[in-house]
Each structure stands twice: as structure tokens, then as C-alpha cells.
């Protein structure tokens, strides 16, 4: 068995997320590449939550809809997901509260006997799974020791009871491959920004970007970061622009709703030519929508946010390595061109778990500060202005200067487009000679690349969405007769964007129920268009 999936589920508050992560790390140590899909409601206690952990010998960035193991801490998990269990799959569950066919253990009773806390039911369950999957005790014990340093002894005890209480049903073999770190997109993006010299992070919490704020706050000591949570998103972006004015490299992060509030600051950054990195983690909208679910609905919003005309960089990484690399580049380019730079992520990538291979990423060196004066420099008077202004920063309404400044900003956009030719702004995967290509952006890259393999298709992924990489896109689309656009929205926003640039998609495969495509589902959709 070398390509398998486990679904573990229960009520929010049962430690499902932690258990999923431990399983992923366990497979990682056994030499597998892993991916974690996290599905949870927007509340703290109660409600159904589950993780799908998928492991394979090859790198993967998508989940499947059929699982080999169904791990249930409550009846709901069985009821909701039993149709996902393969014919030869096995359900492992707490028989004290769950009725099912498969491998039941009286976990509630075990916990009582061991005088263990309720939360450790998850450890008992994954202990039983380890045995059922043919994983030896020392490997499982090591995973518990690594991941549960607190209350270790009791977790080991409970885990062992689960392990001993189960029977081996299949054998997951070791793979001869070194483990890689498992990161969320948020974590990788944070590290990329840090690598390029980020000095300040300012944010107001909002799913799915809140974890960046916590990550930065945790990392603040090590990297001497100034991390701040102001009164709201308007305060966030304007404070960050104060940092930027003073020569401190700053980034902000939010989701669509918070970004609505930031847009006046975006326009200000465009006018005042202040560099700033803005992370927009997309979720299901409109409005509050489904806070903890995914979407790709802010492409045109971010592309057009802010009154007036000014250049902007907008990138949409598709996996954590791209998030790291383009996060670093975005910070550098923002400062090089003194513009707002946007990084679009979505819940799938922001909070999903992926293997992360730092060695596969081209090094991005921290860019030097631009050769301009900053406040505090001797004898320099640095005036920046939200009004149209002359070269010295004084307000003007002069027609000639207004035109000249507008053209200066446009020129920066052209220079930026030229600079981006140095980077792989459009990526191509799969069969380069195929006449059918899948077009995708952001987190859909993983599932599209894997699905394309089965059909022998090419995959085209624009990483840069503004300025649109015309030359590279033209090269990528050459020879393509049928273009299928895959997106997590209901209107085909990338398809619209390429239309503005003179291209058109032949088919749209759209999903807008808050959930990402799973591999089998996308393959099924692609089959319809053969």
C-alpha cells in the first residue's frame, strides 16, 4: 500500500486537527509525501470537523474522495463519510459512542480506566489505526513523543492501549525517502517574506489569514519582527504605510471582508508610491459567507481595488514553495518599484498541510532599500501626499504636473512588467505537446497537475496576474486547441482576465460550494469534456 488516504473526524474541540497532523508527520517519517485537507466549521466547540490525510510516494497537493481508513470519534463521522470508504477500506471507531462495521474499540472506557483526559481519545484512536495499518510501535511512539511533549506519558499509555487493542489489517511499508517539513501555505508565505527582509507585520485577525499573524508573533523574537494588531483593517494598512514611509519593510494580511476596508489605503499607497505587501486569503463569499471554507472570488476585486489608476503587482502562488518564493519576490518588487504588491491565497492553500522542500526553491536575496531619502536622513525633507503632488511632495492641481505624475506611475507599471520577464510568471506542467490544456490559478494547481497526468494534458498556471504576463502566456498557450479553465468560483474570473488579454477558454469547470476540488471529482469533470 503506497498511496492511501485517511479521514479522521469528530466534533470541533476533539483534537481532530492535531491527530491529522500527527498522522501526516508519521507518514512523513516513514518516507511518504503527504497532503492534509482540513474541513472545519466556524466555531470553537461542537459541529463536525474532519481532516483527510493523503500519503503517496510522489509529491501530492490534493485530496481524494475515497479513503482507505475512516477514523471516527463520533457517529456523525461515520454517517457523513461512510460513502467515502473504499470497499476494502476499514472504519476504526470508538465503539462506546459509534455504531459501525469495522474495528471498534471502547475508547471511552479505556480513557476512564487510564484516568486520562477526554481529549486523549484522539491518541487512542490513532494508536489503533497505527496497528491496523501495520506501523510498528516504535515509529508511532516516536510520532507521539515528537508531537505531544505535554501530557506525554498519559498519551503514550492511551496510544498503546489503542495500538494493542487493534489488529493489523494492511501493511504500510517504509519508503526510502528523507522526510520533508510539513507546512501550511500561511507558514511558507510568512517564511518567504521573512527571507526577503520583512521587518513589520500588521494585521487584524480574519480567517484564513489569522494564522500568519500568530506565526509572525511567534517568530517575532527570532527575527526581531515588529508585529502589531491595530483596531481594524483600515488602521492596519495605514499603520503599515507609516512603517513603509519610515523605511521599514511591512506586510499586512486579511481576507476579502477585511480587504474591503483596506482599499482606501491601497489607493493611497498607489498615489504616495509607498511599498507594501498585502496578503488576501480568499474564502467563500460574498460578505461573511462561509468563513472557514475556500473560494477564488477576489481576483477581479483585488485587481481593481482602490480608486484611480496605479500599477500593482498581483501574484497567486499555487503551493507553499511558490508562496515562499513569490512572497519573497513580492516584497522585493514592492520596494524596487514602490508599489502595492498583492499575494492572493485561499483557504485550501493557506491552511492545508503540504510537504515543503526549501532546496527546490531558487534563492531570493533581500533587496536593498531604494536610493531615496527617508525621514530622519540628515537634511532631507521627505513629504508624501495623498493629493496629487509635485516632485517635492507638495500638493498640486496643476494640469501639466497631474499628467506627468500619472504617466510616471504608468511607466512604473511597464517597467514592472519588463522586470517580471526575468521570472517564471506563467508555469507549464504536464504534456507540453498536448493540444488540450487546463488553465488554473492558486491552489487548484496541485489537483490540476495530478489530474492532467491521467489525460495527458498540459497545465498552464499564471502565477502573476498583474501586470498580466502577456509574453509568457502567449508562449504557454501556443499549440493549444482546447483550453479548459478550472476555478473555485461561479463566474470564471481567470477566464475573464485572459479574455481581456485576447484569449478565451473553451470550457469552464467551476466549483463554488466552498470546498476545493478533490482529484476524483476533477477527473470526472474532465471526462465530460473529452
Amino acid at each position: 500500500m503506497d498511496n492511501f488516504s485517511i479521514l479522521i473526524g469528530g466534533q470541533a474541540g476533539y483534537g481532530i486537527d492535531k491527530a491529522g497532523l500527527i498522522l501526516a508527520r508519521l507518514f512523513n517519517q516513514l518516507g511518504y509525501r503527504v497532503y492534509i485537507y482540513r474541513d472545519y466549521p466556524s466555531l470553537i466547540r461542537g459541529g463536525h470537523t474532519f481532516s483527510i490525510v493523503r500519503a503517496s510516494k510522489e509529491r501530492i497537493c490534493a485530496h481524494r474522495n475515497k479513503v482507505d481508513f475512516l477514523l471516527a470519534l463520533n457517529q456523525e463521522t461515520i454517517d457523513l463519510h461512510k460513502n467515502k470508504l473504499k470497499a476494502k477500506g476499514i472504519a476504526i471507531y470508538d465503539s462506546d459512542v459509534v455504531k459501525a462495521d469495522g474495528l471498534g474499540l471502547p475508547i471511552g472506557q479505556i480513557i476512564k480506566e487510564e484516568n486520562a483526559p477526554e481529549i486523549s481519545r484522539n491518541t487512542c484512536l490513532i494508536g489503533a489505526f497505527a496497528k491496523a495499518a501495520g506501523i510498528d510501535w516504535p515509529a508511532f511512539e516516536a510520532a507521539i513523543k515528537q508531537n505531544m511533549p505535554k501530557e506525554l506519558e498519559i498519551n503514550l499509555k492511551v496510544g498503546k492501549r489503542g495500538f494493542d487493542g487493534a489488529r493489523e489489517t494492511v501493511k504500510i511499508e517504509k519508503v526510502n525517502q528523507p522526510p520533508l517539513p510539513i507546512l501550511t501555505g500561511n507558514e511558507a508565505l510568512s517564511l518567504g517574506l521573512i527571507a526577503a527582509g520583512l521587518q513589520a507585520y500588521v494585521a487584524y485577525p480574519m480567517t484564513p489569514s489569522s494564522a500568519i499573524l500568530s506565526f509572525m508573533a511567534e517568530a517575532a523574537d527570532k527575527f526581531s519582527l515588529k508585529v502589531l494588531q491595530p483596531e481594524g483593517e483600515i488602521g492596519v494598512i495605514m499603520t503599515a504605510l507609516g512603517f513603509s514611509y519610515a523605511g521599514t519593510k511591512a506586510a499586512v494580511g486579511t481576507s476579502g471582508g477585511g480587504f474591503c476596508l483596506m482599499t482606501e489605503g491601497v489607493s493611497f499607497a498607489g498615489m504616495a508610491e509607498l511599498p507594501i505587501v498585502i496578503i488576501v486569503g480568499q474564502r467563500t463569499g460574498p460578505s461573511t459567507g462561509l468563513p472557514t471554507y475556500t473560494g477564488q472570488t477576489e481576483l477581479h476585486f483585488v485587481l481593481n481595488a482602490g480608486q484611480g489608476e496605479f500599477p500593482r503587482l498581483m501574484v497567486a502562488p499555487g503551493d507553499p514553495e511558490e508562496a515562499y518564493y513569490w512572497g519573497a519576490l513580492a516584497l522585493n518588487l514592492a520596494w524596487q518599484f514602490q508599489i502595492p504588491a498583492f499575494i492572493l491565497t485561499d483557504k485550501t492553500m493557506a491552511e492545508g498541510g503540504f510537504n515543503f522542500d526549501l532546496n527546490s526553491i531558487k534563492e531570493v536575496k533581500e533587496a536593498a532599500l531604494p536610493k531615496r531619502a527617508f525621514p530622519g536622513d540628515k537634511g532631507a525633507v521627505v513629504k508624501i501626499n495623498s493629493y496629487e503632488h509635485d516632485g517635492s511632495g507638495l500638493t498640486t492641481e496643476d494640469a501639466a504636473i497631474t499628467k506627468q505624475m500619472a504617466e510616471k506611475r504608468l511607466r512604473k507599471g511597464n517597467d514592472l512588467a519588463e522586470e517580471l520577464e526575468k521570472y517564471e510568471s506563467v508555469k507549464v506542467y504536464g504534456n507540453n505537446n498536448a493540444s488540450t490544456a487546463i488553465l488554473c490559478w492558486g491552489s487548484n494547481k496541485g489537483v490540476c497537475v495530478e489530474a492532467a497526468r491521467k489525460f495527458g494534458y498540459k497545465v498552464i498556471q499564471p502565477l502573476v496576474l498583474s501586470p498580466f504576463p502577456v509574453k509568457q502566456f502567449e508562449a504557454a498557450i501556443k499549440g493549444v486547441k482546447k483550453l479548459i479553465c478550472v476555478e473555485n468560483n461561479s463566474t470564471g474570473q481567470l477566464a475573464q482576465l485572459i479574455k481581456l488579454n485576447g484569449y478565451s477558454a473553451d470550457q469552464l469547470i467551476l466549483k463554488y460550494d466552498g470546498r476545493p476540488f478533490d482529484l476524483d471529482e476533477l477527473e470526472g469533470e474532465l471526462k465530460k469534456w473529452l
Partner: protein
Amino acid sequence: MALETQARNNWCPGCGNFAILNAVKAVLAELQGEGTSPDDVVLVGGIGQHAKMLDYVNVNSFYSLHGRALPPAEGIKLAKPETKVIVFSGDGDAYGEGMEHLVFAAKRNIDITLIVHDNRVYALTTGQVTPTSPQGFRSRSTPGGNLEKPINPLELVLAAGATHIARGYSANLPLLKKQVKEAILHKGFSLIDVLQVCVTFSNLYDHYNKHVYELKDHDPADREAALKKIREWDYNLEAPIALGTFYKTLEPAFDAEFLKALKPAAAGSRPELIKEVLKNYV
């Protein structure tokens, strides 16, 4: 260093803003004489007649958006803590659109000086009602008279946590100069609400001249006494209007505490440190 710029002044003749401009320039010159270089001063403004100050003073400046003078000021202070950050704002700017930021800047007690050009009318947009306009005020947006009561900004920031609260008057330049300097030198969040007369849309010179008096025998360290004095005039009904420093106390300033908590970076380059971090994720 000359504090004048090339910009042509286009306030109305007799505008109360001139007094604030003159006070600030005089204080900046004085501070320079005492060793504070203008290089280490940043002026921040919102949008309104008040913000033209930034075009008229040849010092570093951040001409922000309406209501958004305080957030960038806080970013600048935290980026460069040695900077004297002086914020100009209007009553619409600070108490209307930007009230959220005002409350939080006061709550944090960040070392910033906020000078509010409180003319109690929107002048740049030619005469609408503001948060400090009195009840019954007939304006371009309230032709039948303002139905709302004004807020008392001094009481608001006292409750929020400001540590230096004063009221000035554009017709009392000597006091204003003294107040501006005192506020800049105060370590913590200071507000000077300046009764700044708009000669075009709400000329209150006669009204103020009849009611203003300078605080005497008032202990600004006494919070209860400060509150009592602050409540003496509610910006609405006719009452004596005190000028001077109502409240002043020393409490830990946010910027100082923030920087105290900020650790120097760990030894090693960032790429090396990142590799170290990644070890925890395997």
C-alpha cells in the same frame, strides 16, 4: 533651516489655522535650538483645511487620508522611535471619520502629539455639521438645525486613556505655543483640542471671547478634578470655557513598551534561521 515652503497659503484671511501654524513653527524653531533637529520630526495630517499645514512647513510630512492621520503616525513612531511625531487633524477628521483610531491611540498611550483644529464645521467641503457642532447648528447638511448633541472630545480621550489633555484657542497664541511645546515634550499620547475659528462658515470669535478663561489653581495630575473641569462646558450649552492643560500624568507609553519587548534578531543570517525553524516542522 527655513521652515517655509514654496506652497502658496490659501486659507481665508483671519482663519484660526494661522495661529496654529505660527505656534508650531515657533515651537519647532525653539526645539531646534534645544537640540531636536527638524530631521527627527514628522508631521502627519488627515484631510481638511487643517492638513494644509503640511504643505506650509518644510519638515518631513505624511499627508494621509481623511480620518487616517493617527494610524500612520503610530507606524512612524514604532519604526523610528526617536522621531517626534506631530499629528494635525480636524474635528471631522479626528472625532468623526477617525474616531476609532483616536480612541485606540489614546488607549495605547503612544507617544504622539495630536493637535485638533476644532472649528466645529466642515470647512473644506464648505460648511456641514461636525461631531462638535452644537445642537441647532444650521449648516449645509442641517438647514433645519442640528438635532444631535456634540461629543466632548476631552472627556472621550480621558476615558480612553490619554495622558495629556489640553484645550487651546486660536486667538491666544502665547498659550497655544506653550501648549504645543508641552504636548510635544510629553511622553505619551497628548491631545490639544484647539478652538480654531472658521471665519467663513462658523465665526465664533465673539462667542469664545465672551466665555474663555485660562485654568488657574487646577492640578492636572488630579483625574477627578480634570474630569470636572472637562465637563464644565459640553461644547453645546453656554458655559465658561476653560483653556489650558486639564490632565497630565506619566504612564508607560506604548512605543517604549513595544520596543522594550522587541528582541534583537537571533544570531545567524535569515536563511540560516529559517532552516532552523523548519526543523520543527518535520
